[in-house]
Structures are given as structure tokens and as C-alpha cells.
């Protein structure tokens, strides 16, 4: 199993952050604390779901962004674009116009990420994970959530490569004759996929040369179409792999993957639903479910944090588009896939992922036990109203942070209001660590 250092794409924009606690309260893995008036993200716990960014009232949480100038380093520039991208535009912008604009922006080849679904179907790819119910690994944020919060379910995660990865492998095989200067780019609707790509040693890092955020690409396409109003005709250019089946095109929608699985399937979307469901699943002794599709974002990838359009309208356009494509690939296209299959058909599964063991209060469980005891005693002294003013999401988390020597009881504002004297004696018992607020005073002094 790998020991990659996970790269995080979400970051705090310091000058905009007011330390307002919205993100801290929303974070599903309690990865955020407020210190010195600014939000801080704990990289071990963060699963890149983007909930913090969605809830931030001050635009103080952002996602790393690479510019389109990265294309200049390559002579053959391939874009692998999820179908959801095309659903970001309303019906007045035709599919052909978007395609034309993408070519005009500098891409030489254009593939739908969902082509990978058809490739996997043609190659009759089998998942190597055998624990039931099988949990889809399509959403990287859900995969990381399971690694962080549900270690008992890690063995149920699918190991099959994502369609985008498979498409990239196919493209690299198809274009290997012009491998010099070949750059493969992925368009991402969310932070989690960017983080996956930027993690050195990851498969995405190996297969893709660069990543372009949905919103960036959307703006560039709109700008191009505005500048060339009326000139851009539909039908001049097409995808490099001309069609994609109905099943593939619906892949990223809720229940899109279920069509590929026999037996009883369930699809759950949006982070709090997913967590509620995983809690039950982890306890459940027996379930009759064969396959679970879990999406961190509401309505699946159309709800991605970098998407522009209303998720329901985007879903509708994608569904409408999918009703116009064939149910099956024709013989020519199947053969085109099979011609290149030898390059990667043995390599369609990934290594299983491991639990991350970051919930423990200490890596040594004897020490963890001591800290848990300590946290329990501290919690009894705290007010229990979870106001968040201390910079921790709840009294319980503050108690645990104090037990881990990462916070001080002096941070509790409610105790301070009650009796400064009592707080002093409590601080003597639990340690006199300087707090973020104290630090701020020092700076000013």
C-alpha cells in the first residue's frame, strides 16, 4: 500500500477569513479549528469535500487553480472532459459550439471522460474487491471519508479504475505514436479530484499532465463564444472518440453507476446523508445490498463545488443529451477499443486503499486511553453548549484537543464569563498552554 503524502487543493484565503465558524461547524470530519481569528484546516482529517467552501459567507476558502498556459509546454494537448461540464451551459449554447470553443482554446484532442465507462464495459472489467456490499470509489471524497471515519468499511471499497483514468490510458495508447509532447488534461468539477491528481505518486498524477477547474474552463468557453458571436457553427468539430453510450453519459448522475450492477443497489448523495448511511452500514451485520453508489455532493458531480449551473438544470440537460445517444457502441468503435486494450486490460484495478487511523487520540492505544480519560474529565468542566467561540466545533472536540495538548481550557469563553478565578484553577489542572487569543495579545504588545 502506498505512503503518498496527500495533497490538499482547498486552502484558506487569510485576508478574507473572519474566523466566523461557519466552515468549522459544517466540516463532516471536524478538521477545522479557528486560531488567531482565522480558520485552519487539519490536513490529516480533511477529505476535500468542499462543504466549507460552499458554506463560507466571505469567499475565504478557495481551490488551487492552474492557468491554461500550462498547455504551452505540450504540442499534442488532450482534454478529458466529464459530460457534466457540457451541462453547465444552458440550451442556447449548443454542444457543437462548446466543442469548437474547447478546440479553439488550444486542445488538439477532446475525449469525454465517460468514454472510460464504455471501455470498461467492452473489456468486461471485473472488480477485484469482493466484500459485499461493494462501495463505489468514483467519488474520491467518499473514499477518503471512509478511510478517515469508517475504517471498518475500507475493504468494501471498489478497486476498479475510474472512467477518467481508463480514458487516459486509452488515449495514451491511441496517441503513443505522437507521444513526444503529449499532454493529457482533466477537467475537474470538485476539489477532491484535483487533490487526487496533485498527490504525488497517485495514479491520476501519473496519467494526467494537468488539471483545469470547471469554473475556469467555463469562463474561457463563454469568453470565446462571446467574442466570436455568430461565427461559431455547430457540427464543425466533434469528440475524438465520436460517441458515448447512454449508460456512460449518465454515469456521474445519481444512480448512474447502478445500471452496471446486478443485484440490489442503493445510491446516496450529499455528505450528511452519506455519513448517516455509512454509520448504519458499519453496524449492520447483514445487508442484502450488492452495490452502493455514494456521492459527496448533492445530485452527484453536477453538484460539485466548481460547477456553475444549478444542479437540477444540469442534470436535466445531461439526461436529455443522453436520450439522444445510442444504447450500444457500434462494432467499429468496439474494435477501436479492443485494438488498444492489450496496453492496459490487465491493469484495470488499483491497489486497495488502507484505513488512515487519524481518529485516535494517540497512535499508541495505552496513551490514547489516558487521553480519552482526561478528555472525559475535561468535558465535565465545559459548559456543553457547543457555541464554537473557543475555535473548536464542539465542547467534546475542545476537550479532546486539550487532552492532546493542542488547546487550552482558557479558550472557553463561557467559563471565562462565569468566573475568571475558577478558570485559572482549571487551567492549572489541565495545563497552561498559551492560546491563539493570548498569542494575538502578545503580537499587539
Amino acid at each position: 500500500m502506498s505512503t503518498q503524502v496527500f495533497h490538499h487543493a482547498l486552502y484558506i484565503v487569510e485576508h478574507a477569513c473572519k474566523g466566523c465558524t461557519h466552515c468549522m461547524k459544517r466540516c463532516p470530519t471536524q478538521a477545522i479549528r479557528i486560531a488567531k481569528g482565522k480558520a485552519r484546516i487539519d490536513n490529516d482529517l480533511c477529505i476535500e469535500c468542499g462543504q466549507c467552501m460552499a458554506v463560507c459567507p466571505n469567499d475565504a476558502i478557495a481551490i488551487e487553480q492552474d492557468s491554461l498556459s500550462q498547455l504551452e509546454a505540450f504540442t499534442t494537448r488532450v482534454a478529458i472532459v466529464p459530460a457534466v461540464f457540457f451541462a453547465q451551459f444552458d440550451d442556447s449554447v449548443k454542444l457543437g459550439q462548446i466543442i469548437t470553443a474547447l478546440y479553439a482554446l488550444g486542445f488538439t484532442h477532446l475525449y469525454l471522460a465517460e468514454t472510460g465507462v464504455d471501455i470498461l464495459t467492452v473489456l468486461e472489467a471485473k472488480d477485484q474487491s469482493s466484500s459485499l456490499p461493494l462501495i463505489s470509489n468514483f467519488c474520491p471524497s467518499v473514499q477518503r471519508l471512509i478511510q478517515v471515519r469508517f475504517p471498518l468499511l475500507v475493504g468494501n471499497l471498489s478497486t476498479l479504475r475510474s472512467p477518467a483514468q481508463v480514458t487516459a490510458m486509452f488515449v495514451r495508447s491511441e496517441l503513443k505514436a505522437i507521444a513526444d509532447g503529449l499532454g493529457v488534461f482533466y477537467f475537474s468539477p470538485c476539489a477532491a479530484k484535483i487533490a487526487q491528481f496533485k498527490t504525488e505518486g497517485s495514479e491520476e498524477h501519473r496519467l494526467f499532465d494537468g488539471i483545469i477547474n470547471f469554473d475556469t474552463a467555463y469562463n474561457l468557453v463563454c469568453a470565446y463564444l462571446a467574442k466570436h458571436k455568430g461565427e461559431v457553427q455547430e457540427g464543425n468539430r466533434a469528440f475524438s472518440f465520436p460517441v458515448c453510450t447512454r449508460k456512460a453519459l449518465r454515469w456521474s448522475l445519481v444512480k448512474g453507476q447502478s445500471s452496471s450492477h446486478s443485484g440490489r443497489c442503493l445510491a446516496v448523495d450529499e455528505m450528511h446523508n452519506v455519513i448517516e448511511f455509512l454509520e448504519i452500514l458499519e453496524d449492520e451485520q447483514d445487508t442484502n445490498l450488492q452495490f452502493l453508489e455514494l456521492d459527496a455532493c448533492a445530485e452527484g458531480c453536477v453538484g460539485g463545488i466548481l460547477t456553475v449551473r444549478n444542479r437540477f438544470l444540469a442534470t436535466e440537460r445531461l439526461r436529455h443529451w443522453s436520450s439522444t445517444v445510442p444504447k450500444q457502441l457500434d462494432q467499429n468503435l468496439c474494435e477501436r477499443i479492443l485494438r488498444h486494450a492489450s496496453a492496459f486490460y490487465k491493469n484495470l484495478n488499483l491497489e486497495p486503499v488502507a484505513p488512515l487511523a487519524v481518529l485516535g487520540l494517540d497512535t499508541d492505544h495505552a496513551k490514547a486511553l489516558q487521553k480519552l480519560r482526561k478528555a472525559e474529565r475535561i468535558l465535565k468542566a465545559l459548559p456543553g453548549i457547543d457555541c464554537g467561540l473557543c475555535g473548536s466545533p464542539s465542547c467534546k472536540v475542545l476537550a479532546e484537543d486539550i487532552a492532546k495538548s493542542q488547546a487550552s481550557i482558557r479558550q472557553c469563553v463561557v467559563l471565562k464569563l462565569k468566573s475568571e478565578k475558577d478558570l485559572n484553577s482549571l487551567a492549572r489542572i489541565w495545563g497552561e498552554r498559551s492560546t491563539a487569543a493570548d498569542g494575538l495579545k502578545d503580537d499587539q504588545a
Partner: protein
Amino acid sequence: MHQEYLVPAQDFSVAGVASSNLKRLLKQLNIPPQTIKRIIVAVFEAEVNVIAHSYGGRILCDFEEDAIQVQVIDTGPGIPDLDLAMTEGWSTATEEVRELGYGAGMGLPNIQKSCDKLSIYTKEGDHTHLTMLFNLKEEV
């Protein structure tokens, strides 16, 4: 460290709540996932037993450095024939309980399999007291 959970009689809607809370605690103690699974399987079975067969009871957990002891103590009516109850597939569960998906006669046998040491005190007309021990060392 000591932790207690109350288990009410005949309230199947809360089956799994105690074991689920215990699971959360075990994760914080950095216990390996396979061990957590073992403990939760046993405690869940015992919890359902208390709900289905007894007048209610308590689950008492004691955490030590190298072992976790879980005691499940109910308030009666006791098991008339323990050997029979330890037999796979044998159950006294009522039709009502079976309709809820419990009562397959695997409770005590599963508990036995999941823990490192099990001792049971029971007597018809008296209470039942299970003591389960889970070792934390030697696990990979």
C-alpha cells in the same frame, strides 16, 4: 476507563445504539479495525439478546491497556439450559421477534467465536451475566 450503556427490554428500535457508541470510542482509542469489528459483532449480539429475551439490562465496558472487558448484565429471567443456548440455530425467540429479523439462534455462538474469553453466569429465574474479554495485543 469505564463506560456504561443501558439496554431497554423489547425496544428493537434502539438495537445497535450501544454497540455503535462503543464503536466510536474504540476508534478514538486507535484500536485496529479488525479488532473493532470483532468487539462490535459480539456486543451487538449481546445487546440484541438483552432486548429480545430479558427484562432489560446494562453493558459495562472496562478499557485496559492490553484488553477490553465487556460485561452484559440483564435483570432476568435467566437461561434454563445454557448448553442448548450455545448450540448454533437453537432459539427461544418468539415469532414476533423472528419477524423483525432476529432470533436465528446464532447470538451466543457468535459471541463465543468473536471474543477471546467468555464466561457466563445464568440460572433460570435469576439474571444472566456475560463477561467477554478481548485481547488487544498480538493482533496484526
